[in-house]
C-alpha cells in the first residue's frame, strides 16, 4: 500500500531518565511495533540530573514517523523527543574504528587514503593499523569501502549522534 518513495529517513533525539531498563523500553517499542532502527546511540549526558540522550536514526512513511515520535513521548521515563530532520538544521556525526592488516603496498596505500580522509592512526603494529575516523555516515561508508581491498579486518562504528545547530537546547 505504501509506495517506496514515501519512506523517509529521520534522526530523532530522545532525552530519557538514566534508569535501568530505559533502553530496553525504547528498543522494545521499535521491535514490538515493527519500526526500523538504522542506528541507535545512547550515553549519559547530564550526570547531575541522571539524563541520557538517545539518538536514533529510523525510516518510515510520514505517518509512521509521527507514530514513532508519539509512542516515544508516551514512555514514562522520556523527557523530550525531537525530530532533528524536521526541526531546522542539525549536525550529524559518526565515529568509526577501522582495523587494517597487511604489509607492503596495500599498507602504504591504506595509510595514504587515511590521510586524504583525515583518519587518525590510533594503534599500529608491523602488520596492522587501527584508524579512527569521524564524519558523516556517507563519508565513513566511502572510506570503509575503499579499505576493503586493502586488508580490512574489523570495523566498529558508534552510529549517528546528532545535535541541532544554533543556541537552542533540547
Amino acid at each position, binding site marked *: *500500500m505504501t509506495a517506496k518513495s514515501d519512506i523517509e529517513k529521520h534522526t530523532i533525539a530522545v532525552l530519557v531518565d538514566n534508569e*535501568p531498563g530505559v533502553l530496553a523500553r525504547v528498543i*522494545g517499542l521499535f521491535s514490538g511495533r515493527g519500526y526500523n532502527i538504522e542506528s541507535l546511540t545512547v550515553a549519559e549526558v547530564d550526570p547531575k540530573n541522571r539524563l541520557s540522550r538517545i539518538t536514533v536514526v529510523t525510516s518510515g512513511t510520514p*505517518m509512521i514517523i509521527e*507514530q514513532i515520535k508519539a*509512542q516515544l513521548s*508516551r514512555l*514514562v*521515563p522520556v523527557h523530550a523527543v525531537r525530530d532533528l530532520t524536521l526541526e531546522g538544521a542539525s549536525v550529524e556525526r559518526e565515529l568509526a574504528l577501522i582495523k587494517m592488516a597487511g604489509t607492503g603496498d596495500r599498507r602504504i596505500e591504506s595509510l595514504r587514503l587515511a590521510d586524504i580522509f583525515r583518519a587518525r592512526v590510533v594503534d599500529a603494529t608491523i602488520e596492522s593499523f587501527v584508524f579512527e575516523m569521524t564524519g558523516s555516515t556517507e563519508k565513513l561508508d566511502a572510506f570503509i569501502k575503499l579499505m576493503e581491498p586493502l586488508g580490512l579486518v574489523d570495523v566498529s562504528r558508534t552510529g549517528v549522534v546528532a545535535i541541532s545547530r544554533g543556541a537552542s537546547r533540547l
Partner: protein
Amino acid sequence: MSAAAMPGAEMVIKALVDQGVDVVFGYPGGAVLPIYDALFKQNQLRHILVRHEQGAVHAAEGYARSTGKVGVVLVTSGPGATNAVTGLTDALMDSVPIVCLTGQVPTHLIGNDAFQEADTTGITRPCTKHNYLVKDANDLARIVHEAFYVARTGRPGPVVVDLPKDILFATGTYTEPGSVQHRTYRPQTMPDRAKVAEAMALIASAKRPIIYGGGGIINSGERAVALFREFVQLSGFPTTLTLMGLGAYPASDKRFLGMLGMHGTYEANLAMHDCDVMINVGARFDDRVTGRLNAFSPGSKKIHIDIDPSSINKNVRADVALIGDAAEVLAEMIKVWKAKHLKPDARALQQWWHQIDQWRKRDCLRYTQSDKVIKPQYALQRLYALTRDRDVYITTEVGQHQMWAAQFFKFEDPKHWMTSGGLGTMGYGLPAAIGVQLAHPEATVIDIAGEASILMNIQEMSTAMQYRLPVKVFILNNQYMGMVRQWQELLHGGRYSESYTASLPDFVKLAEAFGGVGLRATKPSEVDDVIKAMLASDKPTIVDVAVDQAENCFPMIPSGAAHNEMLLGPEDRQTGGSVSEEGMVLV
C-alpha cells in the same frame, strides 16, 4: 512531614491504604509472604483470594471499570507474575487502571535462575503502561504512590511494581503520597483552544454529522459523560458508540444509533460511511470499527479527541486533532458552541435523519424466532427485559455471545458494561463479575458467557463461593466456539476444524459441585423461568441455556470489507464473494 521508618512489607500496606485502596485481589507465594504476613496483622485492606492470578487481574479490572478507581493485584514471583500477564495485557489494551504488585526473588539472587524467578519487569514491559523494580526500601513507598498516579492519569493503564523479598524485610523511610511528583510524566489534559475553534467551525458547517464516542469518555469520568450527553443534545447529531463506550450515552434515546463496527448496527455503520463530519470522542479507530481502512468513511472530515497523542493519525488521518481529557475538550467545545450561538443546518440535519431512519427500517438486529430451539438473541432479549428494572451490571466472555450482548442489552449508564474489547480475552467475564460484585454488593451482576470461554476461568466459581458473591453466569451454550465456527462457515468452506467441544461438563452439576446453583433451559418456553430462578438465587449461579448451534451473529462487516458492504443475515451470504483475499489474511 513525619519520616517513619518501617519494614518494606508494612510500607506496601500503608501505601495502599493511603491510596484509598479497600480491596486487593491476590494469591500468596514464597516471595510475597512478608506482605501476606503484614496483611494478616491489619484490618483496613480486604484481600480476596482468587484461584488463578489471571483471575486476580480480571477481577481488579471489573472492580476498576465499575467504580472508576484503581484496581489492585498482589501476586508472587515467577509463575504468579507470568499468570498475570494476560490480565495486564487486557488492561493495557482497554485502558484500565491497575496496580499489580509482584513478588520477586531477593535482589542478590536476581539473574541466578533462582526458584520461582522470572524477569518480571522484562516480561511485562510491553504489556504495561509502566513498570518498576524496587531496589531500595527507601524508594518503595514513593514508587507505589507513583504507580497509582501513572495508572490512573492520562490514558489509564496497568502498572507493575516488582518487589524483591529482601526489600520487603528491609527497613526504610515511608514517603507520604502527597509529596510524590513524577519527574517526567505529565499528560496533557487541556486542549489547544485554536484547534477547538477550528473543530467547531467544521461542526457548524456539517450537513451529515456523526458523533462516534468511545471508552475514553467513560474513563475520563462522570463529568465527561455528562458533557458528552449535553453535547449530543445541544447538537442533535446522530451518535454511535464503540464496544468500550456503551453506556456513555443512553441507549434508549432516539439520537443513539447503536454500536458501530464489525457487528454494529446497519444504521450506525452506514452513517459512519456517508457522514461529512465525524466527531470521534475518546475512541481509537480500532480495526474492528473501521473495516477496510482505505474505504473507511471516505467523504468525511474527521475530528479526533483523545488524551493519548499516539492515538492520533495512527490508523486514520485526523483533520483536526484535539489532544486532552475528554471532559476538558467537551467543556471547551460546548463553551464555544454557546458563545458563538452555533446552529446546525436544520434542513440538512433533518434530511440526514430522514436517511438514517430509512436505514433503521432495515431492522438489522432482527432474527427468525423459533418455538423449538432457543435463539441466543431471544435468550438475551428476555434477560434484558427481565432485569431492566434492576441495578444490573453485565460482564462478558469473548465471542458471539459478547457481540449479541452488546447488541441486545441496552445500557443507559456508564460503568455497567465490562467486556474485553481490545485483547478479546476468553475467560474475562467470571473473574470480572466477581470484582464488580465486590464493589457493588447489592447489584445484580451477570456474566454473559459462552460454554467455551467460561471454562477458561471456571475455577473462580470457588472464589465467588468463598466470599458469598451471588454472581450469575448466563451461558449461551451452542457447544461450539461460536465465533470461530461462524468464521469457518463464512471463510473456510464450513470446515469446522477443532471448534466443536466434545465432552463438555454438565454445567448444572458443575455449579452444584462448587456449592452454587445450576439451572438449565433447553426450550424457548423455559427461558423466562430459569432467568427468574437465577435472579432469585442468592448464591453463585450458572444458567446453561442450550441455544441454536447454527446461529450466526449479524450484522457483520467481513474482514477486509467496508462499512457499506455489511452482511445483514444468512441470506446475504450467497450474494457475491463478500470476503476478499486481503480480507482472509486479516483477523
